[in-house]
């Protein structure tokens, strides 16, 4: 970087490049700031949202939740859900602006191993980031919390679960 010195004055070039770059960046951000067609009416709900669950490999599906009987796992999972997941999936996990409801039968009937696999790998092409940066026990705590939720009784926004992430945060 500093091995050779050129004597081009920074001042004139800085002015020349700063604005185009900033406009280009803003343009790109603007384009990507619009919601995709899959998101409507405030809550994202689409059968395709759950299709990734069917892609879990057999080995992952069969994994057992090591924290299933941990008395603190639901509370800790609710806290983690509130911190990392509620923004997209809603504070009651009944669906949000970007993510589908996690109280849906597709999720509630999935094995803990499937949910853990999906959490670990994300659905990158559909906007869900990978969450392997959370240590494995924390991901299992989130799975434990999700499995503690009850499916919605009606199509209306679901009743809050017994443990609300917002209460813990």
């Amino acid at each position, binding site marked *: *970087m*500093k*091995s*050779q*010195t*050129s*004597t*081009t*004055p*920074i*001042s*004139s*070039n*800085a*002015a020349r*490049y*700063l*604005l185009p*770059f*900033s406009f280009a*960046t803003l343009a*790109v*951000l*603007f384009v*990507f*700031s*619009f*919601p995709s067609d899959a*998101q409507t009416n*405030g809550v994202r709900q689409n059968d395709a949202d759950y299709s990734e669950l069917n892609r879990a490999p057999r080995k992952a599906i069969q994994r057992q939740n090591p*924290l299933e009987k941990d008395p*603190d796992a639901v*509370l*800790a*999972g609710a*806290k*983690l859900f509130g911190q*990392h997941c509620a*923004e997209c999936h809603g504070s009651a996990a009944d669906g949000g*602006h*970007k993510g589908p409801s996690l109280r849906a039968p597709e999720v509630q009937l999935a094995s803990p191993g499937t949910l853990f696999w999906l959490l*670990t*790998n*994300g*659905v*990158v*092409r559909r*906007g869900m*980031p*990978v969450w*392997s*940066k*959370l*240590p*494995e*026990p*924390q991901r299992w*705590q989130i799975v434990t919390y999700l499995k503690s939720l009850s499916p919605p009784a009606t199509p209306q926004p679901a009743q809050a679960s017994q443990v609300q992430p917002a209460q*813990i*945060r």
Partner: protein
Amino acid sequence: MQLERKRAGINLNFLLQFDGVILSEAVFQAKLFAAALVVLALLAAAISLPAHAQESPYIVTYDHYLEEPGSLEVEYFSTFGTQRGGNDFHAFWTEFEYGATAWWTTEFYIDGQTTFGDSTLFTGFRWENRFRLLQREHLINPVLYLEYEQISGADKILKEVEGHDGESDYAVPNALARQEHNHELEFKLLLSSTRNGWNIALNPLAAKNLSGGNPWEFGYALGASRPLALKASANRCNFCPENFIAGVEMYGGLGTRYNFGLPNTSHYLAPVVAWNLPSDWTLRLSPGFGLNDNSHRFLLRWGLSREFSGLGEAISSLFGGRKR
């Protein structure tokens, strides 16, 4: 404001007089631009929701985790460096990191530095992009890193070490160093793996200064880190061990295309720690130690960051996007 345009020596800079202080026109524009960015960041903060971050402790090394889509992370970092044969310095930079998609993060930097006993300078900007190459998690996860830098020779943030960068480069007085002008492209392959709570990351880099006939320069960064606890506690807490991530990183130069290798390069070893607060702030601290005579003996880095979610939606609604 009284405007007074003059010719300024061989650089042909225009000068402005602003409250009695003479500024070059470009520096003035750059400061205006920086101020506009700060205002933009404050606006973004106002219309976005804070989001809890689980940030890595690395300051130089990158793991493979990108910014969550639609989230903006505003970060401030400082580097204090000791300097043999010159004055110690405090370099600083601000980052605006935005998750454009789940596979693409774009980031804008503004750099500056104060050399004690010399002056304070705006030293340039950087635009960085990271692209996740594989959809799912693997044993090793590759991310492609592309960066464009327009910085002066007075830049001292040491965000990366490359080629034959060494301590003596930083002893040049600011007035002289700022005349060196670098348009640089930088490529990194970010390789990262997370197992059993440990993250291991390796970042080989290649950089090409487009100003002049400089050769390709090479460097590396590697890091390892782990949270102090893997299970989360049931209660919200500031000092829970899972909020702390500790590790170490090492970085240095690997010479140039014509002179590849370790001779005349500088290398650093730096313990790192991050504290992810429930209030959505992250603090980082990293004392770094030079490993050979070409390196600064000591670097102290620290950083403060906060992540804001929903920026994409907020901008979208400002421009008439769908209400959600």
